[in-house]
């Protein structure tokens, strides 16, 4: 599983960070950083929730 963020869409609402802080981090510069591009499979439900609740639909999962 690979987490892909479309940075042209991302507006750093940080919803993903609220759901999966192990993977997504919005830092003080207000930009989103992906901490684990290939998170373990057991995190899939959380990542899917982050995909669904992203207000900009900026996150997708490959694989």
């Amino acid at each position: 599983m690979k987490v892909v963020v479309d940075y042209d869409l991302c507006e750093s609402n940080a919803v993903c960070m609220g759901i999966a802080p192990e993977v997504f981090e919005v830092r003080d510069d207000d930009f989103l950083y992906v901490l684990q591009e290939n998170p373990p499979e057991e995190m899939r439900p959380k990542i899917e929730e982050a995909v669904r609740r992203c207000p900009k639909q900026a996150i997708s999962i490959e694989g």
Partner: protein
Amino acid sequence: MVLDTVLIVGGSLAGLNAAETLRQEGFGGTIAVVDGEPQIPHDRPPLSKQVLSGAWPPEKATLPGANADLDLTWHLGRRATAVDLAHHRVTLDDGSSLNGEALVIATGATPRRLPWMDGVGGVHVLRTLADCLAIRDRLEAGASRVVVVGAGFIGAEVAATCRERGCEVTIVEALPVPLERALGPRMGPLVADLHRDHGVEVRTGTMVDGVATGDDGDVTGVVLAGGEVLPADLVVVGIGVAPATGWLDGSGLDLDDGVLVDANLWAAPGVVVAGDIARFPSRRFGAVLRVEHWENAIQMGQHAARTLLAEAAGADLGALDPFDPVPWFWSDQYDRKIQLAGRSGADHEVEVVIGSTDERRFVALYGKDGVVRGVLGWNRPRHVMQLRHLVDDAVAWADGLAEARALA
């Protein structure tokens, strides 16, 4: 009960998330979705921003679930006019009817209108894609003097988008403080200040009497109480919405500013309700709430679908986790991102804990009854998310202030 067909009335964010969750949870029957708009449902937040500004083509705002392989039977451009709850039968505006074993009510809300609006060219509300495109067309045809009636979030976002397109913009708000209900009396005025910084005239405590029109029936101005006329070639009225419950009159459902549901969004056997139309009991806030936020629609759609499936499986609904998340919304205006997790109110304490209101980049906490009730951020998305749990855990006010200040 065997569930073969689920009818979803209202295919926007809440209805579509209910459909998606039904499929994710393995429901293999028919899902019929009725929606009053003629096209596959759109995400609404971009309608006051990216689509209105012209930065996005409308297709870019299509809800992703609408294109997903959910095997939905769409009834687009059709409105429900009546319901028979006992038989889960919905009558549509073309006289046809649909039957199922379960019903998801998600018809949302419709914008409130003012009596002088009807039939006047260039006067709009903003809720649907058609509304958005009508306003955009007007701007592209050269409208340059815009009056926004109502300083709520929709009005404020429309004002910002029009201002960024180079229009002269005036916001007229009847209340003395804009956004007082959403942000409280101390934080609400900051939104007016933000707009004034960008050259928008903000007139609070000002009532509108009507419009002036030209020979062609198009708006030429907004008439204020007292007689002053604000010249305008485009007027957008954003004075809130009313839940779209008209088709449920006489159904037996408990209608009171929305459809009253229980803690699992259940309203009657095989009937659940989600989105802007649902009024649910929140234990967390000790109140019955109707929440009009984007994220709430997603979460309610998910929860309502699970409630239906649990009921069909014969589960004890009282044993399910109740629906009671911390509400959250955002509003983008100019280069500011305003976010609120939890709630605020005129009777809440409020304290800025990170940054300052002068730099328009800060976090403020709202408190009531000795606990943290809300976290407001202006361009502080990270901190809002980190502090959202203060509301979730009802952290004591002093402890919440200390934790928030430690992040600064």
